[in-house]
């Protein structure tokens, strides 16, 4: 059971699984070349490491308590990423598939909602923008 932040390319390793494992569900989030109809050329992820790790570990603890799983791991990238790079990798293992699917979905939803990681998109027209921060501007 673990949550990691890394500045290095994510290298997913599924090993040392419990012998009762009957199914694993992984989620891989990739950097895509389009968002809101704008052509994206690259991304930058910035984290507030102390709080991101605290919340990430808390999410893994919650999933362990709420779902009948044998393992849960999540790795999130920080730094500058190219199109197609792996931005986030999540894995849940369980005796049966249902719990593994549910646990993996819970983890990605919780990461997106509350782990303090920000994404700056660089567009092919030369502009750049912190994603979702249009919503913090008065009047919008």
């Amino acid at each position: 059971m673990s949550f990691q932040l890394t500045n290095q390319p994510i290298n997913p390793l599924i090993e040392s699984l419990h012998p009762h494992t009957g199914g694993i569900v992984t989620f891989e989030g990739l950097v895509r070349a389009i968002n809101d109809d704008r052509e994206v050329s690259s991304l930058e992820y910035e984290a507030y490491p102390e709080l991101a790790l605290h919340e990430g570990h808390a999410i893994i603890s919650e999933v362990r308590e709420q779902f009948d799983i044998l393992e849960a791991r999540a790795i999130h990238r920080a730094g500058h990423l190219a199109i197609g790079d792996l931005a986030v990798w999540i894995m849940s293992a369980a005796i049966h598939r249902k719990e593994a699917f549910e646990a993996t979905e819970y983890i990605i939803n919780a990461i997106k909602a509350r782990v303090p990681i920000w994404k700056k998109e660089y567009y092919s027209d030369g502009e750049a923008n912190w994603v979702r921060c249009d919503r913090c501007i008065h009047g919008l």
Partner: protein
Amino acid sequence: MTTLHITYFAALRDATGHAEETLTTEAVTAKALFHDLTAKYHWPFSEANILVAINDRYRPADSVLKEGDRVVFIPPVAGG
């Protein structure tokens, strides 16, 4: 008066112009500090979309600030 350590990330750092500072303030709560800093730096952000962390944990906006606290205002997150 309370002396605090403030760290800025992402869009808030860009809007502030620097990543961290130590300041002495009369603001009693995190919310009051947010309003003082909004006036100082002309932040174009709404309080409704900003969370606060004190000493590396999420805390309510009306939390009372203590001497030496590390304060971080958190714009909308976008991980995953």
